[in-house]
């Protein structure tokens, strides 16, 4: 299993990285042999103080990745390394608590992520109790107020005493982030944190996420299907399709010079009210449910550039430019000019940029 050239080798500078991360789910009863391939062979890297967006539609595997990284279930194959240690092998309660105290998760549905019976301070207090035992009661309370302040829930003292039903969706998501902050995290797993919020509220949460990276020094894995918001907050983007990572690289590069046909399709489909015309495409398909797939590119049925090779060999991520990879047999790498920067023109025969 060779790692892509742009990936950082084990333990060097990367906060978290996965190697061949795979998760399958058995379909049907105990005796069934059919397996749903939710995630296959994912190599993902996250550095310190970085916001990485994991972009994909439903069925792409992005939520499964979040749950794998949150140790909600174990991987079928592959490894997860956090600060050099194998996460998927952690067994003792002490080790597990250590990991959970550095890699918390924020959930998608603000209406289901909080226990309605308790005040909103509950999650924060429990996190403090479990992961920062050195604090005494008064200090815990101070910390709770501090993290509520950071996420913009003021006055913190009053807000902490509220029940979830007294808060709006946006406020509840902020509580979710406050809970994550309470453990002094290195990496926050944010599973579609704004998808269920009204558009006018999203901006506030997205801005807050960016400031968390700047002020608190946390990295964020931002999982979303909305490529526009990914562009707004993320430093790097990883595009997933049908369980595979199909393209990854710095946000601006991937979005301005997408190499994988799926990325191009996604970009063309995003409605932008400020744009004049709609690019029309014949594509009316949807991401497949990947059950017992064979070799070959999983996008080939919808791909306008598919060639014979695409049905036989699963494309691996290969370099397209500095730190920019795509998993496509047809995509051609950027020609570099004398300075090692991508040249302005595209090579004939490569998929055109939008």
């Amino acid at each position: 299993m060779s790692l892509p050239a742009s990936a950082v080798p084990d333990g060097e500078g990367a906060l978290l990285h996965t190697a061949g991360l795979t998760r399958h789910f058995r379909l049907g009863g105990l005796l069934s042999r059919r397996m749903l391939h939710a995630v296959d062979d994912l190599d993902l890297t996250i550095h310190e103080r970085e916001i990485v967006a994991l972009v994909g539609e439903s069925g792409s595997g992005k939520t499964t990745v979040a749950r794998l990284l949150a140790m909600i279930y174990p991987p079928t194959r592959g490894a997860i390394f956090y600060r050099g240690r194998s996460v998927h092998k952690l067994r003792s309660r002490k080790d597990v608590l250590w990991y959970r105290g550095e890699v918390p998760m924020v959930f998608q549905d603000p209406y289901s992520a909080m226990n309605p019976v308790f005040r909103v301070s509950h999650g924060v207090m429990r996190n403090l109790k479990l992961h920062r035992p050195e604090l005494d009661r008064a200090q815990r309370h101070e910390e709770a107020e501090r993290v509520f302040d950071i996420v913009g829930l003021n006055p913190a003292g009053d807000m902490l005493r509220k029940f979830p039903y007294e808060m709006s969706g946006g406020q509840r998501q902020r509580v979710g982030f406050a809970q994550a902050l309470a453990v002094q995290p290195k990496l926050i797993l944010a599973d579609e944190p704004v998808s269920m919020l009204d558009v006018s509220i999203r901006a506030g949460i997205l801005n807050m996420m960016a400031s968390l990276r700047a002020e608190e020094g946390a990295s964020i894995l931002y999982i979303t299907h909305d490529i526009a918001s990914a562009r707004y907050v993320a430093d790097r983007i990883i595009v997933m399709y049908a369980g595979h990572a199909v393209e990854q690289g710095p946000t601006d590069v991937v979005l301005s010079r997408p190499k994988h046909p799926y990325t191009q399709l996604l970009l063309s489909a995003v409605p932008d009210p400020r744009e004049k015309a709609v690019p029309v495409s014949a594509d009316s398909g949807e991401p497949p449910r990947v059950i017992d797939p064979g070799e070959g590119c999983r996008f080939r049925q919808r791909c306008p550039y598919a060639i014979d090779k695409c049905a036989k060999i699963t494309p691996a991520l290969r370099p397209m430019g500095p730190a920019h990879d795509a998993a496509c047999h047809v995509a051609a790498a950027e020609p570099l000019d004398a300075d090692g920067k991508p040249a302005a023109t595209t090579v004939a025969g490569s998929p055109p940029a939008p």
Partner: protein
Amino acid sequence: MPEPLLEVDNLSVSYLTDTADIGAVDRVSLTVHAGEFLGIVGESGCGKSTLLFAIAQLLTPPAEITSGRVVFKGQDLVQLTDGELRHVRWRDYSVVMQSAMNALNPMKSIAAQFKDTMRAHGRMSADAIRTRSTEVLHLVGIDAAHLDSYPHQLSGGMRQRAMIAMALLFTPQLVIMDEPTSALDVVAQRSLMTQIKELQQQFGFAVIFVTHDMSVVAHYSDRVMVMYAGQVAEIGATSSIFERPLHPYSKGLLDAFPSVHGPRRALTGIPGSPPDLGRPPSGCRFHPRCSEAMAQCTTSEPDLYIVGETEVRCLLYAERLRDAV
């Protein structure tokens, strides 16, 4: 100007509970002409779904229409009995619900549900029903082989298309849609919208499309109505609303969308949250969140003022009306 197909006149809907009367829709008026595509845009709690249900005469207690008329092809639907409504429903207007999984019967095949619908609204032979079912599926790009499929066997996008096919069984003149794309991913959404537009051009029916996502209707609607807190905030031609939004809320809403293709800029969103409709703010309902609020916004309730071809409920434009008069 020919007669409008649908004219909603000062419609108000309230939820009458034992504890309070909650005004979900407050004196909303709108017109839809034949073949027109009207988008109704607003966030959660603005009353757009309630308005939709009121127009379609689908409200259930404790929600009730407390005043106003819904005049469809010359008849006030509010005054019709259930029996009279049945003649109009589905033949002259039909409804596409938000979630196909909620609206389709999971225990029946698509063919069976189409048959139920057709039987409920008219007399047709079994052959005619089958033929028509195949036709409408073909119209939305679904293979007729799926007639015998069950909803869970179809993908999300296909289910939504099946819902639209069902709505077209009698080629009505008006199709009302409640967020039909919100459960779909971007690519499926775009293709569904394109399909709807094509069908509209082919058959000439009018569409009322309710959504919380402005960008979805941007390229397809002729006119857009922005709702806030149960009232019409702004209504006008799509291009006007998107290029020169007048109401501070419309402006805020448009600005809240991060853009993929355009330049990257800071997003501000709209601070605060929509008001509790049981106790709306005094004066203009938007004033607590408005960056352009003036002193009188807290005390006077703005009417709908006409600015060119657009109507906007904002005191900023009140002077112009007075000047024009």
